């Protein structure tokens, strides 16, 4: 029963509408996305404005979430931080999805030697522990936003490739592909026009879960001193730099921590809901 994009979306929208968790996830993720996009409008202050006379103020009037060790407004920095954290997630996930989906489709559809070579490569990459590979890449390329994208993207693609290959393998001999091939459609069209839409739901679910993982990974890399670079405020680096202030000014730790938790929660909820909506077979997010 192959279907094109339209059927998929209609069905997904219907199911998503019924799923309370997914709706909540969508609201959280949507809010964060809007905050990131409209940061210059929403933030009460420029994120870098320092006021060395008003450092470490607790939450209160003027600074709803307090100020940090340079007297910068925490709320503004968190809003701008959404940009970094979401961008890291989006770019890294696009990268790993592009590479992973392409290789997975090709491997699953072509089979034979192509499949063998691609899958050995995937196995090879899976022999590296995720975080340590990301750390290695970051050190090798020098920390910075592009490194962060690349490191997290490279870590994610093998899993994606394996997932898509499995789907493609299962669909390869189904009638709708036979039909497409029989009508003389070229292999590239078959791959992207027919096979891909039918593998889309697990990809979307994996990407959503991957966004959550990326936000966490950025925090972990920041803990190791390899996260986003200043003056860009990222949640992970705010959290890490605020850590020594746990006793003195706990709001420096609590708010970035909450932001991370909220974003991860949102993406996980959304992923969970999407899994329910898009995949009739299962009812929970597999990660």
């Amino acid at each position, binding site marked *: 029963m192959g279907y094109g994009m339209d059927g998929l979306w209609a069905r997904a929208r219907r199911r998503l509408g019924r799923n309370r968790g997914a709706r909540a996830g969508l609201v959280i993720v949507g809010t964060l996305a809007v905050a990131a996009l409209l940061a210059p409008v929403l933030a009460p202050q420029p994120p*870098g404005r*320092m006021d*060395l006379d008003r*450092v470490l103020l607790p939450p209160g009037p003027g600074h709803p979430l307090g100020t940090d*060790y*340079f*007297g910068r407004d925490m709320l503004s920095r968190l809003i701008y931080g959404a940009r970094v954290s979401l961008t890291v997630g989006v770019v890294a996930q696009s990268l790993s999805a592009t590479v992973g989906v392409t290789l997975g489709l090709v491997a699953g559809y072509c089979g034979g030697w192509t499949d063998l070579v691609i899958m050995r490569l995937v196995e090879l990459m899976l022999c590296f522990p995720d975080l340590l590979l990301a750390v290695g890449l970051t*050190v090798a390329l*020098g*920390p910075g936003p592009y490194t962060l994208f690349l490191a997290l993207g490279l870590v994610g693609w093998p899993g994606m490739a394996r997932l898509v290959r499995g789907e493609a393998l299962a669909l390869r001999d189904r009638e709708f592909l036979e039909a497409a091939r029989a009508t003389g459609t070229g292999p590239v069209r078959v791959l992207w026009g027919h096979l891909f839409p039918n593998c889309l739901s697990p990809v979307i679910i994996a990407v959503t879960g991957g966004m959550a993982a990326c936000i966490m990974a950025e925090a972990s890399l920041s803990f190791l*001193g*390899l996260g986003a*670079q*200043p*003056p860009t405020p990222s949640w992970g680096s705010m959290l*890490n*730099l605020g*850590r*020594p*202030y*746990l*006793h*003195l000014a706990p709001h420096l730790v609590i708010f970035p921590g909450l932001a991370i938790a909220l974003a991860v929660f949102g993406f996980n909820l959304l992923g969970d809901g999407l899994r329910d909506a898009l995949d009739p077979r299962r009812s929970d997010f597999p990660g």
Partner: protein
Amino acid sequence: MARHPAAFLALLVLLAAGCARLPAAIPEGSGVWRGCLNRNPVTLDPAYVVTLLDSSICALLYNGLVRFDESGRVVPDLARTMPDVSADGLTYTFELRRGVRFHNGRELTAEDVVYSFRRILDPATISRRSWVFEAVEGAVAFNRDERTDLPGVRAEGSHRVVITLAWPLAHFLSLLAMPAGYVVDRNEVERHTDPRDYGFHPVGTGPWVLESWVPGAYLRLRANPDYFEGRPHLDALDYRIIEDGATAVAEFRAGNLHLLRLGPVEHAVFQRDPRWEGFLVGAPDLAVYYLALNCEKEPFDNVLVRQAVNHAIDRQAILEAVLPGRYVLANGSIPPGLDGHDPHLEGYRYDPALARRLLAAAGYPRGFRMEIVQTSSPGVLQITEPIQRMLAEVGVEARLVQLESGAFFATIGDQGNPDCFFVSWWADIPDAENFLYPLFHSRNRGGGGNRARFSDPAVDAILDRARLTLGAAERSELYRDAQRLVFSQAPWVPLYFPINYLACRPEVGGFVACSIANAQKMTGVWLAPPPAAD
């Protein structure tokens, strides 16, 4: 508080007071010291020690001919008295103490001293510290494998060592007090098939004997009952390796550590807590933090630009916000407490308008872009982020480039050509020479220590002369002149001399903070019976 020299003196008094009150009699065998190290030591072989941490552990295990006392003065150690120095300043004669034994029981003789020094210079050793002995007669050629003997270090009989220098060197005795001057037992070094394994099984003559070392976890040292200055009061020293600052604080609060090095934030927390009143010890570190400007690279090859950058940064405001009570504002490179420190040296005052005028005069009316290279430790950002903001005010767009330490040192050394970087310099020896010659002599440009790539023949001449000048007063005058001359050309934005704070548990007695890492021998420390935990 530390803006004025008087406040600084008050600190030194505090340092000498230590923590706990003296009891009537110091309890012998008063227990086990629980300390922590923020990293795993790399090696305990004096020939390969380069870090302060390794150096401080080696100080517990070994002795040299001379050593630093708590205030950084050179005092006799294995030598019975200070050496006889010939009138030309070239020949040093040391009489050794008798009856000094290595931890393995063998008696130390003059031959061991000769062996240990030769070993540092031996090209096969590839010691990182061969430069310490470079003034010794024949050392340079011996180290380059151009001759097989080292005439400059001789044993005369079993307890006399004679060292001759190729040129007089005023601070030579200070160099001998460095870990490179520690005496090792030849048999113990050569016992291992790979001599580098000796670094895990060190055997010295010091007050403490290495009992066990689990890499990454802990070191345990027990008291040497036969130590020539008498057995230490404590039975053993346990050093746990705790890298995460927050973990160390948690351990200290739980009563599991006797001493804690306080970061600026923890310092503020402990300072507000009345329970710790009187248990915080402050001691100036012999170090300087600075922003180096690459004097060989555009636009910093122009002295006006370097001065403009100096005028553009409000150092006082940054330091007061980030390190209150923990810094002495630096206008030069020689820290207070050293001969040659100049309290009257004028700094560049904060004046953004002047900075802009200077930039315009230098041909950069609209500023320029630059990179500030730094390590990725969090404390660094707290200094450089406001600097970045202040530079932006005068039109200089600075990008902060964080590198982890390996890449950082490669970049600021011979491998890279950065515009500007934030770094600190820590004393090997408590001597003004150490804060000028390696940092500003054109001979040491790049990896040799002069990382700002500063070069001025007049400065070189003064520094060369000072190294050969033996009179203390004349020497310190020369260093003051050199410092003034260097900083009038603004190769750095000097930032601060750090003051380190330690929190000490109430039961600790006899602890004295030292400004140089390997002065701390831990022999006078004792523990009172512990009071109730906090």
